[in-house]
């Protein structure tokens, strides 16, 4: 049987599968919020979803449209603030996984959410770091959501907002960032991992119906595809939970 599902649904499910019970999951807006909530409802009931604004473990009966959404303050175990939230992300006692989005990514998983072109007079200005730089500095691992396009998977970022594996190898640790780094990149075409030693991006999973060649063509740098396997599509149950429980208003699932 073949099921219909949207890109966002496949991405949310792919990312959600990385979450383990007990993980503290940092969620942003959009598909990242979908993935975090899905992870808790499907794979890791003991995971805790929280937001940089200070909302910890909200009931999320409706999906928030911003990290400051009133829905992020409802049924939580604690309503705090930004400083509290970021000190949680970096807490050595906690295993924190962060979901981020970005405009550009390089092969070491470094992210740009600031601007394209000259920094001082950019061609396109984006929102800026928000909490992304902080989370990339402190979390135990970062999973990034990307539209898989050549102009987004680039050899060199126009601006490095959030550090992934920096220049590869142990360069991140040498900066003084004692843990964390890019765990995976989840796109509309597949899932990328990072080599344990070189910290270079490789193709881990391609979605059903997507060819490896398509992924290579949409990546702006050479990417190792030797370890690629086909991704497991969402199950009926996963989709049902996603649509009926996580995003009953279909605000993000539909895209």
């Amino acid at each position, binding site marked *: 049987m073949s099921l219909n599902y949207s890109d966002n649904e496949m991405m949310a499910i792919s990312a959600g599968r990385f979450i383990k019970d007990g993980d503290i999951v940092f969620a942003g807006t959009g598909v990242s919020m979908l993935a975090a909530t899905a992870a808790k409802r499907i794979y890791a009931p003991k995971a805790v979803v929280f937001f940089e604004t200070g909302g910890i473990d909200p009931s999320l009966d409706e999906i928030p*449209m*911003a990290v400051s959404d009133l829905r992020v303050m409802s049924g939580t175990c604690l309503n705090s603030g930004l400083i509290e939230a970021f000190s949680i992300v970096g807490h050595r006692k906690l295993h924190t996984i962060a979901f981020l989005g970005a405009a550009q990514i390089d092969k070491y998983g470094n992210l740009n959410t600031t601007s394209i072109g000259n920094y001082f007079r950019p061609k396109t200005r984006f929102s800026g770091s928000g909490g992304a730089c902080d989370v990339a500095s*402190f979390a135990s691992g970062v999973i990034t959501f990307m539209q898989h396009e050549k102009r987004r998977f680039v050899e060199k970022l126009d601006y490095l907002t959030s550090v992934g594996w920096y220049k590869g190898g142990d360069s991140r640790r040498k900066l003084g960032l004692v843990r964390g780094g890019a765990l995976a990149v989840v796109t509309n075409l597949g899932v990328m991992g990072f080599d344990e030693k070189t910290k270079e991006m490789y193709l881990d999973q391609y979605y059903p119906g997507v060819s490896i060649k398509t992924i290579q063509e949409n990546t702006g740098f050479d990417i190792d595809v030797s370890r690629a396997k086909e991704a497991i599509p969402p199950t009926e149950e996963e989709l049902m939970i996603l649509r009926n429980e996580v995003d009953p208003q279909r605000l993000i699932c539909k895209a």
Partner: protein
Amino acid sequence: MAKNAEISDKLMTLEAAVKKFIKNGSQISLGGFTIVRNPMALTYEIIRQGIKDLHIVCHSHGQALDVLIGAGCVKRLEIAYGGSGRYAPTCIRFKKAIQQGQIEFEDYSNYQMSLRFLAGALNIPFIPTKSGLGSDLLNYEGFSKEVRKERKVASKKFDMIQNPFTEEKDDVVLLPALNPDVTILHVQYVGEDGTIRIKGLTFADIEQAKSADYVIVTCEEIVPRSFIRLDPDQNSLPPFFVDAIVKVPYGAHPTGCYGFYDYDPKHLNMYRVIAEDDEKFKKYLDEWVYDIKTHEDYLNKVGAEMLIKLKANPILGYAVGLDRR
């Protein structure tokens, strides 16, 4: 004691509060976050009074910031994030202003900005962090050397030192404290004694208030002293940090206010489209800011039907089932 006697010298109109505390060139910190508890009524009054050359310092801001930039009130900006969640992942007038070189800007992260407010609140000149090591936040200074000499601007974006408590290499970033001229907040409750109670997330509002020279607060309700002092564990700020209090119900619209009303999706969607077009944006300002004589006019313009739709479920804190597309 007569009702409100304790705060009689602080209770004033929006007009008086802005006139008294906000000048051309003031450094202003905005309360709230993206689409929640933005001090919109105060923002509109700042625009109406034609205040110019503001230096805004904030973490993640959406609606209030974007309207201020669009209305030409902002000269200088220190910011972590300019966006309105799903309604405008990047704020439109903010984006335009930077792309067109219309404002001086300096990028920090949310934690960095919050810590800078904390340092200001604690009255310490800087605060250490490890956030941003290796990032371009620590490679690019947005402000020029000339700007760095002006009042309320830090002499440098950050400093980096070796941790003096270890002999191993350990770089630590020092961030300069922020002490804005004025912090403007919209909150749920002010007590008759002047005590502030924010419900739901406080973001960095408390640090922002304590770091500022002056604090203007708009609120949904002024509540009895007996109520606000019955459970002081819940309160957010003592009276002596607040300099002006204005009661403005729905004063955060079109952003939300936990326990009172949701953000207004229709307005935010409309704004995103309009903000792209200079002419339409000008008309928007006329319609929603310049031509509004009183806050009652504003509420009538939003309309009773919408106000009721936005009304929060008092237990859950948001408008259940609101059409948010």
